[in-house]
């Protein structure tokens, strides 16, 4: 029996990131967990995960290589290193017992992209209808929104850098769209 534990094949494995001006990158695999539950559970998530999920809408909190992104008033996306998901699930489950909550591994559900550079916001505005001025969309802001014909999670990680989460099967479209937007800048 073959051991295929290392045989991951990402949906954007074939893209050539050197084709453009270097504003676009495919991020390496991450652990992704969707945590859903009542606000009263958040304290224990913070303790077990090491990052306190934001209560303020559309805000991400970060600590080291972990981040918690507010997606809705009872929904957070927890990001961590690729290998950590099983341990994290166990740790959080123990820490939260006996409270009610939902924790679901979605590590493969979506793909991380990075758009960076002086014109990152301008590039995204080719397909994102939000105001990406840094006053309106400051560093640390995150939200589900749209990129032309696909939904994304958009997270500003620096003045000139955004982290995008795209559903797996929409990732080739999103990448193609971003490449076109880069050419059209």
């Amino acid at each position, binding site marked *: *029996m*073959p*051991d*295929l*534990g290392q*045989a*991951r*094949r*990402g*949906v954007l494995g074939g893209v050539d990131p050197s084709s453009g001006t270097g504003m676009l990158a495919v991020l390496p*695999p991450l652990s992704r967990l*969707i945590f*859903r*539950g*009542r606000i009263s559970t958040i304290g224990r998530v913070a303790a077990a995960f090491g990052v306190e999920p934001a209560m303020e809408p559309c805000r991400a909190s970060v600590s080291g290589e972990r981040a918690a992104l507010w997606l809705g008033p*009872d*929904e957070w996306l927890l990001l961590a290193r690729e290998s950590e998901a099983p341990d994290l699930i166990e740790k959080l489950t123990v820490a939260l017992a006996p409270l*009610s*909550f*939902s*924790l*679901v*591994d*979605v*590590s*493969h*559900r*979506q793909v991380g992209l990075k758009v960076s550079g002086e014109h990152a916001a*301008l590039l995204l*505005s*080719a*397909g*994102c*209808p*939000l*105001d990406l*001025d840094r006053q*309106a969309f400051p560093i640390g802001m995150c939200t589900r929104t749209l990129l*032309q*014909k*696909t939904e994304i999670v958009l997270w500003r990680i620096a003045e000139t850098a955004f982290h995008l989460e795209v*559903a*797996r*099967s*929409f990732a*080739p*479209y999103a990448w*193609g*769209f971003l490449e*076109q*937007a880069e*050419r*059209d800048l």
Partner: protein
Amino acid sequence: MSAPFRLEGGGRIDRTRTLHFTFDGKPYAGFAGDTLASALLANGVHLVGRSFKYHRPRGIVAAGSDEPNALVSVGSGPRFTPNLRATQVELHDGLVAQSQNHWPSVNFDLGALNDLFSPLFPAGFYYKTFMWPKSAWKRFYEPKIRAMAGLGHAPTLPDPDSYAQRYAHCDALIIGAGPAGIAAALAAEAHGARVILCDEEAELGGSLLAERKGIIEGKDASAWLADAVAKLRQSPKVRWLSRTTAFGYFPHNMLGLAERMTDHLAAPADGRPRERLWQVRAKEVVLATGALERPLVFPDNDRPGIMLAGAARQYLTRYAVKPGSRAVVATAHDEAYRAALELAAASVEIAAIVDIRQDMPGPWAARARAAGLRVLPSTTLCATSGRHRVSRVEIAPCGSDGKIGARSRLDCDLVLMCGGFTPTIHLFSQARGKLRFAEKLNAFLPDGGAENLRCAGACRGIFGLESAIADGVAAGEAAARDAVGGRVEAVHAPVPLSEDGGGGRLEPLPNHRSPHRVKAFVDFQNDVTAKDVKLAVREGFRSIEHIKRYTTTGMATDQGKTSNMNALGIAASALDKPLPTVGLTTFRMPYTPVTFGAFAGSARGELFDPVRVTSTHEWAKVKGAVFEDVGQWKRARYFPVKGEDMQRAVARECQAVRQSVGLFDGSTLGKIEIVGPDAAEFMNRIYVNPWTKLEPGRCRYGVMLREDGSILDDGVVGRLAADRFHVTTTTGGAVQVLNHMEDFLQTEWSGLDCWLTSTTEQWAVIAVQGPESRKVLERLVEDIDLSSAAMPHMSVRQGHICGVPTRLFRVSFTGELGFEINVPADYGRAIWEAVFDAGFSRRITPYGTEAMHVMRAEKGYIIVGQDTDGTVTADDVGLSWAIGKAKKDFVGKRSLARPAMTDADRKQLVGLLPENPELVLEEGAQIVADRQSAIGQKMIGRKMMGEKMIGHVTSSYFSVALGRGIALAMVAGGRRRMGETLCVPMPEGVIKAVVTNPVFLDPEGKRLDA
């Protein structure tokens, strides 16, 4: 050598850069900064096209986007664009332009015969003539009319250019970069606002570009403009967009702008988009869109060489072009005097200024007389002549009673006309703003009630340079105050509306001729005359909207720019009603035409729509799979080998699954994870099935209804733990099912402790189906006992396959022993290949959606959306066994008790076997009860069919397993009709088919439990 009508100096053209171009194949030269129109005029070319209906020779009337006549085709090959206004086409070296609407040439056009027969083409002629015979309309009249009329030709080659789009946001969007707009932009910027300023012209400046003598803030106008533009360019808070038309005003201050990026370049850089569509959301909008000069309506006012006075002035001052040598000026407004004076100063002879007014209150008439010009008050222009260019006019004194005195003739090669000014309120009206009629200005002005916007300058009736700038400052400040808030104060007040008259004229100039013989054009572009508008009223049209459609005045690309007010004035007097009560027609976007490319943007080719593929897509492609579109997904339909057609490939694939083992990618199925202590209770409420007693590790086929009782979706659900369900939905239903569930959870049952997470894309799903499937999987699965005792049909286990975590389902959509392997999607390809390799010795066969469909139909399994529509209940398709009878309530339960839902004659799912086993019924075919009604249906037609139709075929295939065609059908009272022979009338004849149980194969389900 310079062109004959180019002045020695002046203008905003670059005389060091000579540009060569052709018009109708003839070479000409112009300068950088020219438009095609100004360059043609510099070369003495006035005849630039033929009119829409009568094919009359037409010349350049205007100098901007209001040009109704000079529509030309530009470019060649794939870069060919028809119907561009020559007044907006910027000259570049090598430009190729053609006139339109004529055959064989613009100078000799056979279509001009239409003009002679014009009595045949009155308003609405196509509603009145060509009525008989009826069949000729489609075959003969319409194609001929379409070939004769219409503007230029559509390009036929694929567009090689790309088109970009961009969203933008600002505090103040200022539309129009004339004096008011620039002043508003500077003021808003100074008060801290993020500003976008756009203008349709290549250069910012609007009327300032043709301003010779104006002084602004102590500076000469062009110096002020240069300083202002420099300031705007330097400000990081201002984005200025030239060559950008604000074409549409959409709700909540969203505006569409079309930016033309490369058309003005001789050689556009590769890959640079040709146009960019901006969708701008502005907190505040300032419309500084100016006003358009109106033509006067007089007989034969459409000859080349007859142009708007302001346009002539623009050609002179902005492009240093003399539009003629000897001009007659016809006016009802002071502004024409300014044009006359400036043209006279450039040594254009002014034969006379013919003013229909008796009194000229302003200083201009005196100035003209002082300059030695001949001013004739109370005089009308009653005729023009000249074949391809105006050569003579007739004028006559005219009293206020409209009586005409003795006529005299004036030779000329240019007629300037000015009927007054119409504020450009298109965008304001699109924003649902209210208008009021200002009598003294003869104009509709903005009067509130719109979005967060304000108007400044001429578009709200504030004329004059100083006033426009002051008004712009006030508007810019107020916009900044309302958008930015805080400490911003608007210091200046809007300029009060002047009470001066001088608003021009909205009626035709009086003439001596029979009104039936006169063509005095109201709408040049659509060839509508004053006579046509009056005729429409005589024929009973009362509403201005109806008059517009009947006569076509102000329609199409013109959008009433030059024609609206004159048409309204004529309609009002024909209706004998005050003009404001007749009202304006609705303004629609776009203000000027926008290319389809701009709207399409990147949505073409590979980016037309997302193409969603599964993790095994590349593998299937290499194997030669034929794909089908299922929503945005590409799914392998079948895997032909050695030149097989679909039928053979599907037969082989089905056989492999029934006899050995097959492999199928089911990843596109929707998946939702429902977690929490109340998960089972939620499931009980949302599905018809009972869930409380389903043990962890077991699966159940679930059906959910809409509240109206119809089937919404179905799918297998696995219970992973007491508080965790793995739900699957149909491929197409994934999004709406999640929405449906969230709706109930959030709005009706917010007290339940359970949560939903979409996992559709988390899992790759590999179905391994067939009697040998267990043997294949046993070699790969490590920690799950696959035996029937340990893992019966409809169970789920978690473990590992080839070292990869899996949720392994024992389920079947084929009727065979089968498993569905769920692995995290990035492992999908590797596991698929591992299964394929492991099954090699058993001739494992990949199969596609077509074989899947055949096999599920053999088992009578429905596909929601194919065998059901929005009217079908669970009982209709034989699924009432799934309903938890003991449950007090679930979504849709109450509706199932409504009388119509329990009617014994409802359509029910049955099997159909054609009497001829070779036949495969057509999906969608209608079913009738007996041969008699089938024949009757054939004889009497549709009506009979409606009465006798008792059902329809929903699924139909050739079944290799059964050796015959099989079908599923919805038939009224179908379950009562078992064994009956029904008829399926088809064009080739009636097909007989016998009603059977819809489960054709292995009704006991022995294969499933193997």
